[in-house]
């Protein structure tokens, strides 16, 4: 099993969700986050005063998938979240040791 964590632009969330559903992804956790990457924030101007905003609003998606479809899911997130402009985000993949469904006690991929 893999835990795939993606940081994406907020307005791309719906595109990513729609693209993942046909692959059999059962669940998705979404968090509103703020941060910066190479872009180093952005400038906002209010009545002539410039403010450097270091932390830009982003969406963090966390999804757990079986090893078999992990690559396909990564590819799909990459394609559906991409705009081609700076700030499109990152995808992080880690191995997941265990997964447990709280209601039934099922474990491993059976709990997906």
């Amino acid at each position, binding site marked *: 099993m893999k835990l795939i964590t993606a940081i994406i632009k907020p307005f791309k969330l719906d595109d990513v969700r729609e693209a993942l559903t046909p692959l059999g992804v059962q669940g998705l956790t979404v968090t509103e986050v703020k941060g910066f990457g190479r872009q180093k924030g952005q400038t*906002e*101007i*209010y*009545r*002539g*005063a410039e*403010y*450097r*905003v*270091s932390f830009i609003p982003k969406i963090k998606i966390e999804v757990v998938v079986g090893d078999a479809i992990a690559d396909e899911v990564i590819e799909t997130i990459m394609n559906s979240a991409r705009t081609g402009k700076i700030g499109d985000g990152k995808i992080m993949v880690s191995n997941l040791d265990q997964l447990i469904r709280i209601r039934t006690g099922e474990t491993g991929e059976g709990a997906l």
Partner: protein
Amino acid sequence: MKRYSLLGLLFGVGAPLSAIAADKPAPIDTGDTAWMLVSTALVLMMTIPGLALFYGGMVRKKNVLATLIQSFAICCIVSLLWMGVGYSLAFSNGNQWIGDLSRAFLNGVAANFHKGVDSAFTLGAGTSAAVPMTIPESVYIMYQMTFAIITPALIAGAFAERMKFSSMCVFTVLWVLFVYAPIAHWVWSPTGWVAALGAVDFAGGTVVHINSGVAGLVCALVLGKRRGVGTDDLAPFNLTYAIVGASLLWVGWFGFNAGSALGANGRAGMAMLTTQLAAAMGGLAWMVMEWWRTGKPTALGIISGAVAGLVAITPAAGFVLPGGAVLIGLAAGVGCFWSSTWLKHKLGYDDSLDAFGVHGTGGIIGALLTGVLAFGPLSATDANPVGVVGSLPQLLSQTEAVGVTIVWCVVVTFVILKVLDLVMGLRVSAEEELEGLDMVLHGERIN
């Protein structure tokens, strides 16, 4: 001052009953009265909720409640102050400099009641410049009270995010007594000396906007900059609030300007029309300037420009034609944009929310252009068949009125602030400012 019973002083029944019986009261005009009741509510809406939200949306999250409560507290304080002595100082005959205390605690306000029906009153009764009204005095008192409320509330935009609440409350009392009431008397009372100069101010360009804007500038200079100006992120917390607030200001301004005709008539209609046009032009002018200078037309920009247009048309609303209103809106949009985005940074003062940049600058532009663009027939009366006409002499009168307002406001505001600084301190500590006024001063926060 005559001696009245305490009950009489508190409840305004001090006039001798014999006088009521002797004078046959004049009838009020119900249409005029209805419109002035509506206008009064509209002007109060400008402060709470309008100005409160306009300012509250522009500060940081940790200071939003403290900013909203300033407008609310000023509303409460000035309402009672106006009943106590404010109205009397501003609108009783007194002398040319200040009214007297004959109407303190609204003494005599019940004098026109007869068998449960109020009758009209005469402003400046007994003087050569008396103005017969067609509305009850209670309505006039209340209408003027809403102007006295919004003026000190406007100043709060200059000292936002750093002034002690206790000092602000005391400042409000002293400022209304020593700055607002005298200037309102000079300009609007039939016995006032600025009115005698021939200067006109239809709805408060001088009394309200220049006065509050200049006082705001003095506050910004005396209190000093907020910590972090130029280095930290001081971006507005929620511009949605500011947009809602500015929209309420715009709608409320019809009571401010069209209400200043003091009746339901054509001049009120024309004032409403000129108000709408100036606001629209001001918003567009600021928007275009911003688009040109920074590449993007912003929400804060267009609402700032609309407010600038509203400010500038205020002294002129009942004197100019629609074309003149558009010119005033254009001048205000460009001028206030320049004042708020360039002059402020060039001179280095921290007028947090541009009380001077919008109200001071816009008020001066409007007051002066009134002297250029005034169309005589709009203000002509039997006593003055020519009316106020845009001309060099009128422009000079307007300039004099602007000048004396600025001088009085600067000097007296400065003295009040310095005395308060010595006695109770004006500014919160550095740590308190960093933590935010909501928690430090009011024990509340937005979660």
